[in-house]
């Protein structure tokens, strides 16, 4: 079986956080306890949307030690393939859903003498569970959180009320910007920095830290890519002996699953490397979108990450 273990849950609460974000609460259907997890973990939510089954990862934002319920926050993406729209428009309190056991690809380095969290927009969610973990264990932390404006700043009020000295908020529309160089230069040895937000923010933080001489091992980032729609294409799966069509709104991985092929996966966001698949033959061009494979691997035409990457061309044969 692919992916992490599954848990049957019921949606027990849906709270609109602001115009774009809704929070969902899940409790076990059998009344039992959910597993504890580590701050920064995500769960993969199964969405049965008509004929399509989508599996989208969302960061767990609840207290990792709270086994009664999990919560996630979903930002509506009107341009996306419909996963967030499904959550926003079709899921109601009382619905039965299936989620995965927690998986953590963005865990805290527990050796850190201090954790420096940098969040952009909905990228705040993994930090919400990490902050709760730090508070419980007495770890030093500091948050710098950039959002578009006060109306769209998810959880700003809760954070600044509970942690007036640790939580710092910046609003784009008020021209407030994180003074990143000063912030990074001032950090004592043993600090680890974590960034979650839009691609541009992650690139900015990583490049600035590198320029200032920060060790690579002290810079952590999480960037989940949602699979992007694209032109339909055909794939030959050599091991399964099947030829399948990938529709414009589904990923290659989803198309394989729809055809009954049990392909490995974990994060479904181009980050973990689990779904790496060998290319046997191709005539055409890859649209690589993952950040797992190295640039030379992308160029080689020998591997593809079917969770987020696509293909345009005549022939594609995979070792699956």
């Amino acid at each position, binding site marked *: 079986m692919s992916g992490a273990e599954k848990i049957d849950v019921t949606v027990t609460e849906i709270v609109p956080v602001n115009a774009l974000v809704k929070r969902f609460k899940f409790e076990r259907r059998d009344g039992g306890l959910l597993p504890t997890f580590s701050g920064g973990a995500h769960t993969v939510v199964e969405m049965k949307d008509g004929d399509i089954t989508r599996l989208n990862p969302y960061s767990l934002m609840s207290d990792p030690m709270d086994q009664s319920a999990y919560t996630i926050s979903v930002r509506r993406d009107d341009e996306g393939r419909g996963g967030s729209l499904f959550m926003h428009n079709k899921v109601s309190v009382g619905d039965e859903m299936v989620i995965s056991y927690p998986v953590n690809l963005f865990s805290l380095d527990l050796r850190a003498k201090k954790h420096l969290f940098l969040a952009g927009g909905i990228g705040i969610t993994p930090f919400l569970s990490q902050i709760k973990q730090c508070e419980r264990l007495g770890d030093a932390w500091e948050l710098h959180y950039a959002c578009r404006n006060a109306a769209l700043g998810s959880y700003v009020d809760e954070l600044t009320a509970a942690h007036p000295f640790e939580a710092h908020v910046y609003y784009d529309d008020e021209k407030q910007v994180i003074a990143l160089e000063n912030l990074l230069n001032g950090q004592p040895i043993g600090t680890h920095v974590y960034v979650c937000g839009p691609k541009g923010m992650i690139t900015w933080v990583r490049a600035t830290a590198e320029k*200032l*001489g920060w060790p690579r*091992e002290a810079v952590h980032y999480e960037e989940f890519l949602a699979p992007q729609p694209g032109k339909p294409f055909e794939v030959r799966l050599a091991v399964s002996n099947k030829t399948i069509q990938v529709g414009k709104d589904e990923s290659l991985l989803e198309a394989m699953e729809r055809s009954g092929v049990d392909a490995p996966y974990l994060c479904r966001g181009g980050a973990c490397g689990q779904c790496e698949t060998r290319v046997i033959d191709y005539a055409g061009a890859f649209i690589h979108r993952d950040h797992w494979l190295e640039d030379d691997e992308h160029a080689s035409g020998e591997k593809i990450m079917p969770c987020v990457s696509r293909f345009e061309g005549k022939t594609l044969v995979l070792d699956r």
Partner: protein
Amino acid sequence: MSKFEFPKSILSRPVWGTLEPRRGLHHLMIADAEGAEAILDVATPEMMESAHIIFIPKGTDYAKRLRALNPAQFYDGPSYAASVTRIQRVLLGAKMSTQVYLSGTESLMGQAMLECTNAGIPHTAIQTEHRGSTARRMQCVHCKGFTEDVAIDPFVCSHCGLNLFVRDHYSRRYAAYQGVCVDAEDPGNVPPSKGIYP
């Protein structure tokens, strides 16, 4: 030249590199004896403006040349042991943008690296370059005592007196290679000692 080509070994044996200038707001450089040559090779006037050199000459006369680099701070210490509290104090006030350069003997680099990793610098972010003596700091796996400057294999543990063979298995946490009893299965049958490197 004081460089030595170590033979290929197992994966726990440290691989020392070649110092190169890196960007950073501060540069902490710790060296002993011929390790000074690696600092002389890598130093730039710009780097020296924010450099702190800690040097243990061990009878060599490099100190004058290092001082002539005009680093922001320079310390000429009689032994590594004498310099440790200074190293700890420097690390206590150091920021994440500090670059660390270690050069000289394996014992010096290993022990200074341990201070840096205890302070919170990932070991992979610390630059090293071996120069000079290839003698090793050894830990006896039986009595846990350390014997410095071991150049022969087998050797006698300076604490418990057991005859130990020299392994390439290395512990960063002890900054030492492992010494294991050579005649456990045939007490008294100790092969003649030879140099660790042919």
